[in-house]
């Protein structure tokens, strides 16, 4: 990472936790965990509250759908770490490994429910162009997504437009697939707290 404090500036208790994570998971501690645990009162705790509500709070989008949205926002931002991390969680949540890898490369030809496709397209535009207009939102409503579903999807987009920027800015290292699989299991079991 580009800031040494994020790699090794944690307190003793947090360092002990990292050692435990490495021992139990047999994987390196992901840089995203190092980030949220550094001076957690400033960013990690308040951001985790947002992300937990966004990704695990009540919604008519499934957890797999929301993880897919996170992966799609990350892919649009060209954030390799978050794309791989949340693709792994979406695959595990859907119990369909092929679904995620079929959808992410090309939404136009993917076999996917229309409300979800339209929502992903809107999130892609918002992430890429930094804004959407009324017609963009009307297209999602016309595809069958409810107002609440759009609001929920925008919350996912908010969270991962924060996290993806930080991953790229701080230079998160991208580990092998085993580390992301271990992270996916943790996020499905425990959430983002």
């Amino acid at each position, binding site marked *: 990472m*580009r*800031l*040494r*404090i*994020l790699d090794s*500036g944690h307190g003793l208790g947090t360092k002990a936790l990292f050692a435990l994570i490495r021992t139990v998971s047999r994987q390196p501690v992901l840089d995203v965990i190092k980030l949220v645990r*550094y*001076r957690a*009162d*400033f*960013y990690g705790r*308040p*951001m985790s*509250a*947002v992300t937990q*509500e*966004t990704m695990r*709070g*009540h*919604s008519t989008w499934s957890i797999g759908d929301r993880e897919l949205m996170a992966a799609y926002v990350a892919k649009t*931002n*060209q*954030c390799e770490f978050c794309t791989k991390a949340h693709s792994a969680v979406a695959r595990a949540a859907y119990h369909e490994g092929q679904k995620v890898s079929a959808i992410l490369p090309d939404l136009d030809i993917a076999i996917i429910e229309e409300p979800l496709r339209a929502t992903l397209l*809107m999130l892609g535009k*918002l*992430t890429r162009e*930094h*804004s*959407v*207009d*009324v017609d*963009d*939102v*009307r297209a999602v*409503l016309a595809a069958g997504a409810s*107002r*609440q579903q*759009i*609001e*929920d999807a*925008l*919350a996912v*987009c*908010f*969270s991962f*437009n*924060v996290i*993806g*920027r*930080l991953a*790229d*800015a*701080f*230079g998160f290292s991208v580990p092998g697939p085993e580390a992301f699989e271990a992270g996916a299991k943790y996020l499905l079991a425990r959430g983002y707290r």
Partner: protein
Amino acid sequence: MSDIRQAREALVSRILEGAGKALPSERRAAFNNSGLAGTVGSLVDKVAKYAFRITDEDFGAAMASGLSEDKVFEIVVCASVGQANRQYETALAALETAAGKE
């Protein structure tokens, strides 16, 4: 769901108004991507617009201007949250117009 309004407001309030190493005015300028000159301003603008292009040199230049790592940490967090927040609010406004106020 899932009303993230309170949690989002708490996040924004904490990073802008709570205790920190960078001045509140610096954090707010990073959040708004407005009013920061030089290498720090360039780093903030990159975080907001194309974070994937950031390099070690961008961080090196910001710290060479006299910022500590903790200040850079806070400023980058504020820039990221600020950009995501602007996008979110723009989209919520479009939704309100399209679907009507709740």
